[in-house]
């Protein structure tokens, strides 16, 4: 016996026009996702007026397909040119680009595609079966819980990149400092804005990202020109082997769960999910020292997590009418434009629509797997282009990406400054990952702490009354102390072994 609405969804989608729209949405999503500065939330917003002319189901199918594929698309440029196409792909660049430099671009791209699809499909099934229940998680997350989550995120700072822990911590503090720019939410005070209205809202994340990754890499490439010749063999075109997939099975499963759960939290979304996915992959890996130098688990971990976050983000969007991410917010507006009101009623009154969204996301996932695997061989040829030709083109792309965000020159300057800063820091042994982490979590940790203190009448003990927050604090503590304790334990065991 099929559930109500199931057959309706099948017949609504089994239509060449609708399938064509989903295909178009997927292709457009991959392309838009791959270009730095063009993100899936922008593409969805652009398609919104167009979708008004469609019927509700094709319209929402198109937008959801674009959303799924856009998140995957970001990994392509992250791996090939160290310029994450979208913020959630940051963590993919940590190891994806080193793999491409080693001549394993095809392996990294293929793994990104497979991991993305696994994460994506897992989260879509979770969306279908548990959305009304899981959506309640969003309610149990108030400011104290977000604060604890951010503390947990920051607890990974020291170990997030392979550079010296102390340098990672310094980088993280730099990121946190940059995050203080702008008008403070809880006091309304302007900080470090110097009267520039564009800075009131804070430093935008994307220009910093493009600067720290792509521009820094361009400058390092330029500094190396003529010194070393770099020959990449045709091994670059090879896809991942069966052995590779066996190795990352656990990582993908873990990241899919993490990504879905983090995606459910309103406005959290893919970037933090990918960071946590990366760090957990490292923590559970047998060879954590290989992370940062091109470990294949390090591509699978974040990619599975950020795509799982797409399905996760749709859960509160559809079940509560509270967007789980920026793109989901636009999709929510898309539903409203069609006179539909997302919320608990939607699941009871419009099961056909829910199934249609489910199938559209499923089809999009399968389609971008095909695009990703077939494209991996073609895209990976980019890593064979000589640096003197490739990097100037990337530089032009950086400008477009930074400016396109809000058509603001301030963002272009931010990108260039971030690039120069990143180059100097890299020269002195600092990686971009901790800075990005500090920047992502900085605003969240400060705002949520300030809100929590008002809620707790300025008393720190209030945090102890929130079980979810306590769990995250414990996780953070264990993440900080697990390696020193393990080291102590090991040396103790060695001593004991010597005595006997």
């Amino acid at each position: 016996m099929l559930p109500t609405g199931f057959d309706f969804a099948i017949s609504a989608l089994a239509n060449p026009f609708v399938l064509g729209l989903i295909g178009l949405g997927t292709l457009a999503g991959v392309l838009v996702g791959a270009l730095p500065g063009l993100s899936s939330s922008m593409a969805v917003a652009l398609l919104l007026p167009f979708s008004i002319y469609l019927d509700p189901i094709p319209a929402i199918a198109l937008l959801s397909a674009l959303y799924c594929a856009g998140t995957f698309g970001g990994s392509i440029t992250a791996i090939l040119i160290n310029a994450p196409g979208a913020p959630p792909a940051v963590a993919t660049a940590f190891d994806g680009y080193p793999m491409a430099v080693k001549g394993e671009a095809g392996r990294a791209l293929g793994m990104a595609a497979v991991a993305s699809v696994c994460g994506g499909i897992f989260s879509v099934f979770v969306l279908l079966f548990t959305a009304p229940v899981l959506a309640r998680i969003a309610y149990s997350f108030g400011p104290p819980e977000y604060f604890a989550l951010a503390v947990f995120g920051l607890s990974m700072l020291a170990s997030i990149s392979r550079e010296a822990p102390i340098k990672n911590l310094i980088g993280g503090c730099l990121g946190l400092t940059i995050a203080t720019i702008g008008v403070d939410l809880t006091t309304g005070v302007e900080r470090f804005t110097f009267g520039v209205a564009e800075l009131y809202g804070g430093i935008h994340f994307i220009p910093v990202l493009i600067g720290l990754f792509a521009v820094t890499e361009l400058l390092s490439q330029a500094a190396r020109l003529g010194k070393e010749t770099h020959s990449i063999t045709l091994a670059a075109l090879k896809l991942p082997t069966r052995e590779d997939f066996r190795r990352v099975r656990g990582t993908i499963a873990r990241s899919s769960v993490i990504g879905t759960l983090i995606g459910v939290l309103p406005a959290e979304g893919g970037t933090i999910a990918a960071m946590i996915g990366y760090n957990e992959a490292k923590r559970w890996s047998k060879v954590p020292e290989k992370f940062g130098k091109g470990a294949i688990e390090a591509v699978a971990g974040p990619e599975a997590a950020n795509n799982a976050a797409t399905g996760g983000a749709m859960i509160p969007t559809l079940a509560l009418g509270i967007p789980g991410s920026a793109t989901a917010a636009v999709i929510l507006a898309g539903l409203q434009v069609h006179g539909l009101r997302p919320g608990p009623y939607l699941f009871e009154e419009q099961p056909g629509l829910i199934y249609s969204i489910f199938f559209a996301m499923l089809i999009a996932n399968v389609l971008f797997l095909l695009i990703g695997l077939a494209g991996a061989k073609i895209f990976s040829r980019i890593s064979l282009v000589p640096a003197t030709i490739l990097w100037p083109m990337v530089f032009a792309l950086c400008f477009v990406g930074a400016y396109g965000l809000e058509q603001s020159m301030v963002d272009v300057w931010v990108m260039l400054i971030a690039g120069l800063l990143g180059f100097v820091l890299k020269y002195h042994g600092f990686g971009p990952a901790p800075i990005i982490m500090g920047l992502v979590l900085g605003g969240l940790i400060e705002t949520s702490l300030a809100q929590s203190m008002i809620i707790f009448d300025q008393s720190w003990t209030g945090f102890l009354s929130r079980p979810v927050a306590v769990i995250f604090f414990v996780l953070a503590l264990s993440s900080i102390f697990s390696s020193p304790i393990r080291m102590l334990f090991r040396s103790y065991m060695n001593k004991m072994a010597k005595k006997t």
Partner: protein
Amino acid sequence: MLVLYNEIHQYSLIAIQKRVCPPTLSLDLIHKNCSAREFPATLANMPLTPIKKRLFLGYLNASSILVFLAYGTCLAQDDYPSRPINVVTHTSPGGGTDATARSVMVGTKLALNIDMAVLPRTGAGGIVAMNYVNNQPRDGYTVLAITPSHLFAIARNQGPLRIEDLVGVARATDDPSIVMVRADSAASTLEELFEMGRRRPIKWGTTQIGGGDHISAATLAKVANTKIAVVPFFGGGEIVTNLMGGSIEAAGLNLTEALDQIRRGDFRALAVMANERLAVIDHVPTTVELGYDTVYSTVRGYAVLKGTPENRIRILEQGMLQGMHHPSYQDYLRGAGLSRNAIAGQETWNAQINQLYLEARQAMVDLGIIR
């Protein structure tokens, strides 16, 4: 979290300009303000052989010079609108202001027979958007979407504009704040809530400090002689989540934001901050009925800057009003749970802009935020 929300953008302008002037044509001589629109349209409909095309282009160049010369008279005969109109918003795509603008545009485009685009200039409660609009020619091609945020910013003397610079065009939504508590709250009336606050401050969720939501809550508390502890959030969605989760005790939320929660009985509406009751929840009294004359509503409308030709404002007003009566916008209003009565033309809206501004100033003076 805020950073993630900021990853927003707009490219449609480029796409639209391409559509209006296909790149195959060398139309650079034609001034963009003039009626360049007919030329590509004519050419596109004409099946031409290569030779004829060249001839035609020659003719076109000649005529373009004529048009260029005729530019001076162009303004007089005024074929407004002849190129895309931009609506400048201050929030990211997907927010209420963005969604409202896009739905109004569907019908307005048809009515004015011209393309329109949303340009988000996010940040600083509308100041970035006002800066942008202030630097554009006052020719009716740049429209500012305004909300109480903008008026509060002007009232605080922030940003480049003064209240006299704004000329209202049309109003699209009017969404009054409703004081709400969770259904299991001890307070079942507004007076009981305030009584609680006299014993210890009520945890009250608002949007940004100094914005309309905060000021109206603070004014209401002051008038009622009660205490509130303001917990600021980035948006209405977060406030709903936190009121639901119990982190805060009360908030002023719109119908758009919390209609479902009221209907399902999760939230209890105590008072509508308006002069008249709302049709959908007509059992809920207004603050005015209860003896507090503090009202607050998320009104969204459109304005241009002073100096825009009067006849163009009239054309824009008619176009936008037709857009608001188009089924697309009516569906949107129904989906969002908004009243149709909000739709109003220049006269009503302009008066309201000025009144809201005066009220905002007065409230901030009363609270000692400005002098």
